[in-house]
């Protein structure tokens, strides 16, 4: 009896203990993912299915968002640049902003909202309806089938979506610049590629891989650990989005520091 009460007694405080327990669980979840991803059997079909859902089905929303971002950012930057007669720098400014930060960030945030929440809700509902337990009983590895496939799909698809977003945002910017400054397409893209470097492109790709992995793993983790019925499903979906977005911003900050350090070498 005394041992039981000692077990229930928090180490630091209830909340702090819960936070660190959650952190340990998340760490174990990630570790398990890396273990399972390397071991057969490989669920290629499910990965492709998830790629379709996450990548192709998100494309219209992402493209529209990217296009609007390109136009809006160009329009908002113009007054500041025109104050000292530097509107010819718009393509350079937009390319740096889109390729370095806005492309990956906007794509990841949209995907976190659309894909992260759906993964969280989907796996959460499977969890509360005990479908995951049923899979375990039927000798199917639910982690491999549900988590690994989705995380791989987000990890592969988010960089692809970022490429699309970058392209569409630059095209949106071009339309705006062409309309106002009468800049031709070739001149626009010459200025765009003149101001960015390989480091910008590669850091953008690597960053989007990390963002994709984050969205997938957070959505799956939240869904996999949901409880308390339908309320838990909603909470899982919600917290998947919130946590994904929060982590994306943290990762963006870290990536910025690392890339700047590399650039300064």
């Amino acid at each position: 009896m005394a041992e039981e009460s000692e077990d229930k007694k928090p180490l630091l405080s209830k909340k702090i203990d819960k936070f660190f327990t959650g952190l340990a669980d998340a760490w174990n979840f990630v570790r398990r993912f890396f273990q399972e991803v390397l071991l057969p059997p490989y669920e290629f079909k499910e990965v492709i299915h998830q790629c379709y859902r996450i990548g192709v089905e998100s494309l219209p929303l992402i493209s529209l968002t990217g296009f609007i971002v390109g136009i809006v950012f160009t329009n908002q930057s113009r007054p500041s640049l025109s104050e000292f007669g530097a509107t010819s720098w718009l393509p350079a400014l937009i390319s740096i902003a889109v390729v370095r930060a806005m492309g990956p960030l906007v794509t990841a945030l949209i995907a976190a909202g659309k894909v992260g929440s759906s993964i969280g809700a989907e796996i959460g509902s499977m969890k509360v309806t005990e479908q995951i337990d049923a899979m375990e009983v039927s000798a199917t590895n639910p982690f491999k089938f549900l988590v690994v496939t989705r995380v791989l799909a987000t990890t592969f698809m988010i960089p692809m979506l970022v490429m699309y977003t970058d392209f569409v945002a630059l095209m949106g910017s071009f339309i705006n610049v062409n309309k106002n400054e009468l800049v031709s397409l070739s001149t626009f893209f010459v200025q765009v590629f003149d101001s960015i470097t390989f480091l910008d492109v590669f850091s953008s790709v690597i960053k989007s891989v990390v963002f994709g992995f984050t969205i997938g793993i957070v959505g799956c983790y939240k869904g996999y650990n949901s409880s308390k019925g339908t309320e838990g499903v909603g909470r899982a979906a919600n917290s998947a989005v919130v946590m994904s977005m929060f982590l994306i911003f943290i990762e963006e900050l870290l990536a910025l520091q690392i890339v700047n350090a590399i650039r300064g070498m």
Partner: protein
Amino acid sequence: MRGENKRSVIVGIFVFIGIAILVAGILTLGGQQKKFVKAIHLKAVFDDIGGLQTGNNIWFSGVKIGTVRKINFYGDSQVEVEMNVEESVSEFIRKNSKATISSDGLIGNKIIVIYGGSTDYPPVQEGDRLEAVMPLDTDQMMETLQVNNANLVEITADLKVLTGKLAAGEGIVGAVMTDSTLAIRFKQIVANLDRASANSNRMLAELNTFAGKLNKEGNLFNDLATDTEIADELRSTIASFKASAENTQQLTKKLEEISSKLDDPNSALGTMLNDPAFAESLKSTLQNTDSATFNLNRGLEALEYTWPFRKGFKRKAKEEEKVSGN
């Protein structure tokens, strides 16, 4: 099953297009930044590179021909900049070309500008070092500006004193500005000056007209100024004048000698000209000669009527009559 296949194809197309965008971007970027072209390495050592970074552009005759490859410290505190320059352009860059640090626009990135070089020198080769020319240092500019500022402060201080004196009516200008009678007189002076200026203008115009006339062809002055033959003739004439003047001088000298001799009472002519006794004697001699001549004439007239000369005189008179009759 068919639906799954369709999805796989769509996902494949999606991934393909995504990768194609990435690859196209990388190739365009590499092409534009000359990453995939054959390059040679050139070096330049600067005292100060002013924030130049690896990857900054290199311009030659306003064309981007490469990028900064590496920046290293060199010697005590100098900086060696290694440049990637397109091999195809290297034939236009000569070994005596210079490298300097400039900026792309007023507030643009730092760039290296290669310029100069003469065809007397061979083209640059791998590893060549270009002569570095230090750019205009903004710190030095600021220092100069600071000196200018200090001068400006002194000038404004002096101006302040000056304007204070002017306002107080000190000095000529101050008096002119404050004293109304002085101002009126000053105005009159200015009006006079104005008139004088108008006159001088008119005079200048007349002089101009006169000079124009002098400059006309056929005019003596114009010929003197432009005709080389006349100048030669004038020179020879002046030489002749000079010779004549010398001769005249000699003649004058001799005349002076003669004159002095004439003044000498010991010489015959001097005695004739200067001795009054001699003049008196000469006068009486001439009077005697005159009376002797008179007497001689009378004697000769008498001789005309005297034999044997009478016949001769008659014959002469007849011949004279004949000549006058014809």
